[in-house]
């Protein structure tokens, strides 16, 4: 019994010191001097532009990664081909790779001095230090989530129902829409929630390719950094709280959808079926 309380105490203290107190303190510090400074920080045009840009990038990146994620999961689970292991590893790579490396990689291809630079320049297309590169960076870092959530669900549902639909004369598209999609919808939803959270919070890759131009290419996370460097703590804390509230909403949705998904969460055996 003593050991049990000891373990509980150790676990809760660790979480308290590492997670709860620091995050709680930022909330307290934000509202410490009342609502007015917070309101001023939130109506600052730079803040509003950063918020809008963050949402815009997520609005582009999340649907693209959702479509890619479902297609990629279908290919990984339902098809046999050479190089499947390579594709599998590539999809996981953004999880293991530093976001700064991602930013540098895109920079070396799409910047003026990069591989495609001269061609892009000749056609008047600007990618780096503008929205397109920020979207590309965000897509890169949030690439794996939908794939990794949909793959185990596809494994689990098998192909019986799809085969039945085919024998009854349904077209591939109709089969996908009427049979496969409804079966994987919670996996997709869970993946979309994770992708969105990752998109809203991306910092490293975006800070390399965006050029960090205030009021132009500054997302909310870059705004936090910028306000902090300018000693504007209220501004930094306010933007942080907005991002933290979005994160807490993500947590809420994750809990909601995890209950709907029939399997246990990310265990080590989750994508073993893949190999």
């Amino acid at each position, binding site marked *: 019994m003593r050991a049990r309380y000891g373990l509980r105490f150790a676990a809760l203290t660790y*979480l308290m010191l*590492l997670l709860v107190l*620091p995050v709680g303190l930022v909330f307290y510090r934000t509202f410490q001097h009342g609502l007015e400074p917070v309101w001023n920080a939130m109506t600052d045009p730079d803040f509003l532009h950063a918020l809008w840009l963050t949402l815009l990038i997520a609005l582009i990146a999340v649907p693209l990664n959702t479509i890619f994620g479902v297609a990629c999961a279908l290919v990984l689970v339902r098809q046999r081909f050479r190089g499947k292991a390579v594709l599998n590893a590539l999809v996981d790579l953004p999880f293991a790779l*530093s976001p700064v490396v991602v930013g*540098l*990689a895109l*920079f070396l*291809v799409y910047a003026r001095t990069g591989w495609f630079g001269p061609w892009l320049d000749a056609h008047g297309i600007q990618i780096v230090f503008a929205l397109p590169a920020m979207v590309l960076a965000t897509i890169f870092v949030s690439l794996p989530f939908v794939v990794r959530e949909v793959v185990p669900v596809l494994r689990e549902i098998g192909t019986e129902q799809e085969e039945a639909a085919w024998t009854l004369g349904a077209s591939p598209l109709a089969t996908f829409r009427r049979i496969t999609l409804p079966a994987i919808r919670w996996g997709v939803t869970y993946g979309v929630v994770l992708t969105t959270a990752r998109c809203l919070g991306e910092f490293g890759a975006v800070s390399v390719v965006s050029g960090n131009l205030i009021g132009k290419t500054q997302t909310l996370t870059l705004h936090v950094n910028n306000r902090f460097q300018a000693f504007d703590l209220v501004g930094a804390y306010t933007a942080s709280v907005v991002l933290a509230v979005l994160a807490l909403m993500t947590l809420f949705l994750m809990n909601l959808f995890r209950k709907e998904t029939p399997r246990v969460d990310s265990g080590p055996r989750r994508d073993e079926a893949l190999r």
Partner: protein
Amino acid sequence: MIGYLSFIVLIPLAAVIWKSTGSGLEGFWNAVTSPAALASLKLTFGASVVVALVNAVMGTLIAWVLVRDDFPGKGLVNSLIDLPFALPTIVAGLTLLALYGPRGPIGINIAYTRLAIVAALLFVTLPFVVRSVQPVVHELDREMEEAAASLGAGGFTIFRRVILPNLVPAILSGVALAFARAVGEFGAVILISGNIPFKTQVASVQIFSNIESDRPTAAAALSVVLLAFSFLTLLALDLVRRWGSKHES
């Protein structure tokens, strides 16, 4: 689909590798073994090893408490574990700096030290081991523990001889993910580390300042080291998982 992957992942990564050898293999080697690069790589891997070890112990402990213990608010604590995944890393760094920084309310100031880097990395890697071990603890056969107890084994012996062997694959796979994440982390450390060369400048931050000061070859060389390391981690992870699933059946 191949086009999507090519333009976003493959071609850019190829560009990094190409750029890193822009001034020959010798140039690559010189960039990677320059004193600043070596110092940052040593710090990055050293801090990540510490973080991996702390996570192995604390992550397993938290997973255990969340499954086997019961107390009011457990559900809330359980959902809080995922907060580091959902919270932007720059915010994570800022919150730690607010509590443990120069103007913190408890008078502890670890800002701009290596300890601060470890703390930031512990924050962002918290969920990996917990979420990897939790389902395995859930499926543990309690009868084995009871059998061991009835044969006279003490609490610690039961843990070491009966419980731990079952958890090892899950712990290792969580630790590998946490380690990989720690090595590449940028947002959480940039504010709290102070970015002091030779002292608190981790590899990702050094890559960033190399880009900023227009030394793309040096940045690319260091990136290739991290890239190679990411591949190795994924490979190790794959081996751990295969070993784990063979272990089970």
